Structures are given as structure tokens and as C-alpha cells.
């Protein structure tokens, strides 16, 4: 993990607070419970594009990941997705990014029960 990325909190407290204001807590919990699947699908899409050496598709899938992770307050995951989308200079950097992505995603998913305040269904 880059030093810069380590500075980004796993979750953005403000974004979570905004979501809590806007949504019924059960509804928010249900949505957050789907985050691993949604972000996992986006990461799989990045992997698939990387294996085809399709940089544009890598960036498009990273854009999707950035959007969903960011909107649910998963700040570090969104930040890494943004790096892949906008700062990747070539396919050779994708492999290393994917490894970091998997690690950050695991951390994010593992922290979700803390955010929700109970085990995920």
C-alpha cells in the first residue's frame, strides 16, 4: 500500500453519517451488506479486463468500483479504484494494483459489521 493510500481512512465517517441521515438504518444495513458482492464484481471485471490486456476496460471497471465504493463511504477502496482509473500508466502496473485492490477490499468488507453495528446478514 502506498503511503498516500494508507493515509486514506478505510471508511469516510462523513459519508456514512450522510447515508444514515438519508436512509432507514435497516435499509442502509441491507445495502451495505451488498457492498462486498458489488465491489467484488467490479474487481472481477478489472481482473478480466487485465487478463485481456484491455486497459480501457480496466479503467472503466475501476470507474464503476470508484463510484459504488465511494458512495457507500468505502474511502480507501474508492481511492485505490481512482488511482487505477486515472493514474495507471500501463498494463504492467495493473498486476500490482490488483493485489493491493484485493487486500483493501478484504479490509473494507471485514470492517462493514463495525459500520453497520451488527453482523451482516
Amino acid at each position, binding site marked *: 500500500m502506498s503511503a498516500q493510500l494508507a493515509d486514506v481512512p478505510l471508511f*469516510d465517517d462523513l*459519508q456514512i453519517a*450522510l*447515508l444514515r*441521515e*438519508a*436512509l*432507514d*438504518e*435497516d*435499509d*442502509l444495513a441491507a*445495502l451495505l451488506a*451488498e*457492498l462486498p*458482492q*458489488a465491489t467484488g464484481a*467490479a474487481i472481477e471485471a478489472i481482473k478480466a479486463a487485465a487478463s485481456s490486456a484491455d486497459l480501457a476496460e480496466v479503467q*472503466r471497471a475501476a*470507474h*464503476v468500483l*470508484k*463510484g*459504488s465504493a*465511494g*458512495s*457507500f*463511504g468505502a474511502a480507501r477502496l*474508492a481511492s485505490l479504484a481512482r488511482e487505477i482509473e486515472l493514474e495507471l500508466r500501463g498494463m504492467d502496473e495493473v498486476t500490482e494494483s490488483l493485489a493491493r485492490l484485493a487486500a483493501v477490499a478484504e479490509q473494507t468488507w471485514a470492517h462493514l459489521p463495525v459500520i453497520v453495528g451488527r453482523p451482516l446478514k
Partner: protein
Amino acid sequence: MNRTPPANLYLGAEGLTSGQAVRNARILIADDEPLTRKLLAGILQAQHFTNLRFAENGQDTLDLMHSFQPDLLLLDMQMPDMGGLEVCKAVRLRDEFVDVPILVQTATVNRREMGALFRAGVSDYLSKPINPAELVARVVVHLERRNLLRELREYRERISLELDAARKMQAELLPSHATQHAAAEAAGLRIGSYSRSSSEIGGDLWGLLPIDGGRFGVFLADFTGHGVTAALNTFRLHALVHEYKSLHGDPAALLSMLNERLVRLLPPGQFATFLYVIVDHGAGEVRFATAGAPPPIMTSESRGAVRPFEASGVPLGIARGVTYDEHVHHFAEDARLLLFSDGLSEFTDGTIERIGEAGLVTEMKVSPRALAPHELINAICRAAGIEQGVAMPDDTTIICIDRRAACNDTCIIKAGVASDCSVASLVPAQEEVQCQRS
């Protein structure tokens, strides 16, 4: 389990009459990422927006625009098959969607791209990550704006239809071609007239009142103001003028009676200038009384003279007990009489000087003698700067009564009244009368 309801993210909507209409609005959410669609829907549903549909890609979006007819489109900028820009352009191509708000969700803050989006017809954008309060506020603002525009459009369409009906009714108050033709023929003279309102309906009114043996009266009224109020007053006056048929042969008495009635009817600040002329071809004279109207102008061919008559008198509807003077003038067989409202003499489009009464006298002096009444009116209008299509600041009426020998011109009159050029008029919604030399 916490069941605290979500906060009202748009407090203003509760107090607005349009709040329910806004929340019943159809909203199409176009996003290829299922969880983002659910999040957007969850936020909107928590604010009681329930009429939602979802599109997963660009083509889906275009299809649902047609089948769902949304009141607002929430559009993701990047979908697998089409970019948001492309979707937006395709939506805006359809007339029925030109004013549907399109809110794009984008993390892009590239100023050039934003410019392209707005040029393509995007109404607004939502930043990412999704900010629930921003989402709701922008959705509400755009739906309210759309509702207001729709209400305004419907209101204008209704008013326009009603004004059009009122305009036709008011046009029917004016003497028809047949009436003008009959009066002119009975008196052996020619009549030309012009009537144009500053808006759909106006405060000018004129009329012909047959008296006996070819004698007839002509009245010309001009109410204060324009538009609906002034027009309604013309209907009142029209009824009053016809109510006092026994006074049609007595200009001063007619004006006094009309004044007494209007003083009681009109609120302070509303009044009318009024001119009533009895044309007596048998006696070769005109008798008239005026209540503050512009002075009639008479031309005499043999003497080469053009002169305005004296015109004094308190406008109708201002004070009770007003008496009016009757004036009598010789109306020779070589004479023409021009009656007009001040919309003519005072006309200006802001770039030209008002022609004024003196200018009208001059124009009548220099205009060719052979002009038929409506041709003289056209020449005067041109001299005053009144052209077809020009905006009229005031209602304008012009009447020309020509005692000179009937011309030999062939007249074509829109109303289809065969004529020896004794009648020519231009009234709203009618084509311009043409008079062609045979």
C-alpha cells in the same frame, strides 16, 4: 432495532402546494451498477418518491424514456453501451423530452467535459460520491421547475384561447363590411376604417349608427389603458350606445347621457374619450360633440384646405353633470373627414417622432387627392410609422369618410362584399383590403 425514520432532506417540499405533485413524479434512474441504482432509489423512496423505474444501459434508458415518459432522468455518465453524453443528445432530439430535466451523476469535474454536457442538454449534475441531501434537493428543484413551467404553459395556452375568443367577440362589435357598405351607399359616400389593438383586445371602439334617410352617426371611443379592463369597458359602452337610440340624432345629449352612466359604472381612474359625429349628406353638414377625443380633420378639395376641428370636452366617466357642446360644420361634396384615436397621432416605436395632429394635417395636405379612403389611411399609417407587424403601444382606430365623387376603382374586399370602392377597412384578423385601379 433502530427504526428512526430518515431525515426530511428537503424540508421546503412539505410546505409547497406542488410537494405532492413533485413526489408523484416519474423518475428514471439509469445506472449500470445495481447497487448504485438501489442506493439512489433508497434515498428517493425514503423521501416518498415512489414512482421510480430503472435502466441498466443506454439503450434501456432510451427505451424507457418512451415507455415510462419520466418527469426526470437521473443518468450515469458511463454505461457500457453508451456514454451519458450520447444518451443525453439522443433524448433531447425528441420534442417531447426537450424540457425533461436530466441530472447526470459524475465524478468528473473537468470543465471542458462539463461544458459539453450542458451543451448536449444536461440540466444539472450530481457529484459523486452520492450526497443524499444534494440528490434530493436537485431532484426537487428540477421537478418543481418543470411543474411550474408546465403550469405556466397550460395557463398561457388557456389565456391565449380565451383572449382569442374575446378578440373575435370584440371584432364583432365593430361595423362589418356589410354595415359600412350599406351606410356608405345610403349616404352616397365612401368609408374607410382601420382598427388595431395593442394586444389581443383593446380599449378602442367605433361604430356606425344609421339614423334616417341616409343620415348616420359615427362614434369613436378610447378607454384608458389597454387589455382586458379597457376591452370590457368597450362592451359596456357598446351596450349603452345602443340603449340610447333615441339620442343618436343629438350628439351633445348622447354624450351627456353616456357620461352619466359611465360615471356610475367606472371606478376612479377609468374613463373614455368619445367622439360622436352625425354625417348628414342631405344637409351637407356634420354635427358632432366630443369628450376629450382628438379633433376630427376635414379636407376640402376645392379650397385645398385641411383643418382640424375644435375639440374640447370632459372625457366620459370622470364627473357627473357634464354638458357637451354640439358643433356643426359644412360637409361639402368635395370634403373628407378623418376621425382617429390618439393611438395614431401618438404612435411611436421609440425610434421615431410622434406624428401628432399637425403631422396628420400635413400628411393629408401632401397625399395625392385621388386616394380612396383606405388608401389615405394606409398613407397616414405609413407616415406615422405604423407598418404591418410593428408593435402597437396603444389601441388605434382611424376612420375616413369621403364625400367626393365615388371613384371608379375596382375594390377587392376580403369579406367578399362587392363594392364600388365605397367601403374599405382593415380590422384585426382580416386580410388587408386591396383596391386596384381598373
